[in-house]
Every structure is written in structure tokens, then in C-alpha cells.
């Protein structure tokens, strides 16, 4: 009986260690923010991030080649159909930073834009 409870104790400790380790790994994983692009809009077109908190922006295109340029935060990527583009970002300053499509995509290309709000 004593040997059995010792066994359970060891198993319990192993589970606790694995659980704690797993949780810490999960906590370190940055949030993924999914952004889709199609002629001539982003969804969402407003994104709020926290200063100093890392995130991953994951872009997908629903129709054709688009681009994403946010010069204020130093972000630029192509968004190709059928291929997710993942961009890690850790904003270092608060403010509103406009972004727009920089791969010419048609008649509404000039209005394909949005804004990233970075809050303290």
C-alpha cells in the first residue's frame, strides 16, 4: 500500500512538472493575429497591439497578390494567395500607424488601407 502511494506521488510530480513546463511554453508563444486581404480591403482593418508585447501577424490573401506596408512599425510583406505570411512584431512605440497595400491590385488599390493602434 505504501509502495503504491509512493508510485502515485511520483506520477503526480511528473504530471505537475510537465504541466508547469507546458504552460510556460504556451505563455511564451506570442499571440497570432490573423489578417485577410482581398480587393480592396483588409479584415480587420484596425488592429490594436500593446507596446512591448510580441505578436505574430498572419496574413492570407483571398484573391490575388497583395502587399502590406506599415512604414511606421517597419513592417512589409507580400501576401500571396494560398500562402500564409507570418510577420513577428514587437511594437516599441505607442501611436497610430497606417498601413496599406503596396502591390498594385486594381482600381481600389489606393484605398486599401488600415491602421495599427499601439497602446501603452
Amino acid at each position, binding site marked *: 500500500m505504501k509502495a503504491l502511494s509512493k508510485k502515485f506521488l511520483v506520477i503526480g510530480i511528473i504530471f505537475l512538472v510537465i504541466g508547469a513546463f507546458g504552460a510556460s511554453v504556451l505563455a511564451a508563444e506570442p499571440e497570432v493575429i490573423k489578417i485577410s486581404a482581398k*480587393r480592396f480591403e483588409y479584415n480587420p482593418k484596425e488592429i490594436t497591439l500593446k507596446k512591448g508585447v510580441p505578436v505574430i501577424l498572419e496574413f492570407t490573401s483571398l484573391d490575388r*497578390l497583395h*502587399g502590406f*506596408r506599415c*512604414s511606421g512599425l517597419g513592417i512589409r510583406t*507580400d501576401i500571396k494567395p494560398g500562402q500564409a505570411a507570418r510577420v513577428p512584431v514587437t511594437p516599441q512605440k505607442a501611436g497610430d500607424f497606417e498601413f496599406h497595400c*503596396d*502591390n*498594385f*491590385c*486594381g*482600381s481600389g*488599390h*489606393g484605398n486599401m488601407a488600415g491602421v495599427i493602434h499601439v497602446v501603452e
Partner: protein
Amino acid sequence: MDRRDFLKLAGIGIVFVSGLGRVAAAAEKAGKKLPGDFYFVQMSDTHWGFNNPKINPDFGGTLRKAVTLVNGLEIHPDFIIFTGDLSHDTDDDQERRKRLTEFKQIVKDLKVKDVKFMPGEHDAAVDNGKVFMEVIGKTHYTFTHKGVNFIALDNVSDPGGSLGDQQLKWLSDNLKKLNKDKSRIVVLCHRPLFGLYPEWEWETRDGAKAIDLLLPYRNVTVFYGHIHQENHHMTGHIAHHAAHGLMYPLPAPGSKPKLAPVPWDPAKPYNNLGFRSIEARMPPADYLVTEYPIQKS
């Protein structure tokens, strides 16, 4: 009376765009006739199909006015080059085909029959130049005129505004045929080759690679469109000159939070719309650029 005397009498401003211009001017003053002179006209950004009357109430007539003005030049140019955005953008291939065909029909009235065309992103970026090539022709090519080597580059069929490795290799192969000290090279393109204002896509993403290929050549000048205003810039010894548009002006680089056409000013109709002539004199090399506004008629 030669063409330069005519321009002076007409009171039209003329500007040398090369430091070597002073040499030619001195020769002219001394009464020496320089051989091999010619001039051509650059027309740009006609945006046929644009139809917002708040921006240009004469959207259907401005191109025709420009054609009439070019036809009225005292001395006809050797050739005319359109540096892109012949048509305004549309997502419909059939409509783009129609606009480019109508454009072609209008410019058939030009008296000078040697007319060359290049695409802008409005003509070619949505379908990688497919309809443009079908209706107008090649998107990049070379030609030689009276000893000057012209290279027309396509930095618009790629939606991101790159020349691409294949075209850069083509450029490199063509440059290898030329003499680094003696050849006169004029590069024509739609977007600026350098990063004039990347936030507004006023750049060629891999333009620095093209400039690097051109830099070893002593005599290179670039004429381009896209920004709908006059702009002069140097990258090393290479001069880059942007032309006015023929449908609507755009604001100065970075002067507005968002890029948008400058609305029509009834007090100054056709303000900042026009074309230019470029006079090549040789030797020594220089280019004389003359800007012609579109007047209300």
C-alpha cells in the same frame, strides 16, 4: 532660325539638364553648328478612361489638346514617347482593352508617326501586361536614334514595381554591347528607378540594381513619369527627370498624408498638366528640356 532661337522668341523656358550643357551653350554662342542634333517629345500619364470632373472636367479633351499642341510645334520632333499610364486602371480586361484602343485611336492624329509607347502600372500591373502587349506592344525594348541608345524598362508589369531578375539580365546584356566612356544612354521608364517616396510607391523595388548596372557608363540620363510633376534628381552622375502628367497633377512627394490627385482649380485650368520636349545635342552630350503647359483653348 533654329529650334532654340524659336523657343527663346516664343518666351518658353528652356533648361539644360546636364552639366555638360554649358559646353554646348558656349559652342552655340560662338556660332558653331553642332552635328547630330535632334529632339523628341515625352508625353506621360494620359490616364485615358479617368472620368472624375472634380479633378479634371475636361477629362475627355485634355489628351486631344495635347495632341494638337504637339502637332503645332514649329519644328516637328523626331519621335514621341509615352512613358506609361496611357489608360486609367480598371479591373475588367475588356474595359482595359477598350481604353487602350481608344487611346491609340486618339494619338493616331499625331503628325509625327514615329510614336513609342510604354506601360504604367494602371495599364499593366493587374494582368502582368497581357492586354497592353496585345493592344500596344512590347513592354521593354531598346532602340538607337542618331547615335543615342534608348533603353525602355518595364517596372510596372510586376504589381510590386520590380524589374525582376530576368529583365535585369536583359539590361546587363544590352549594356555590355555599349562603350562605358563613349556611348550615350537614355533610359525610359514609368516609375522612378530610385526611391523617391516609397510610401507612395514612388520607387522601383530593385531599381538600385539597375542603377548599379548603369553607373559604370559615363553618359546616362533617365526620363520617367508616374509622379505627374516635374522632378529632377541625381544618383551619382545619372540624372533622373520626371514629367508632368496629362490628366491630373499629384502632390509633391510626402506633402500630404495620403496620395490623391490634386483637384481642378477653376482659377488655373489645366494647372501642372503638360508635356516636354527633350533636345539632344552631340557632341558633347547634353539634353535641353522644355516644359509645355496645356493651355485653355
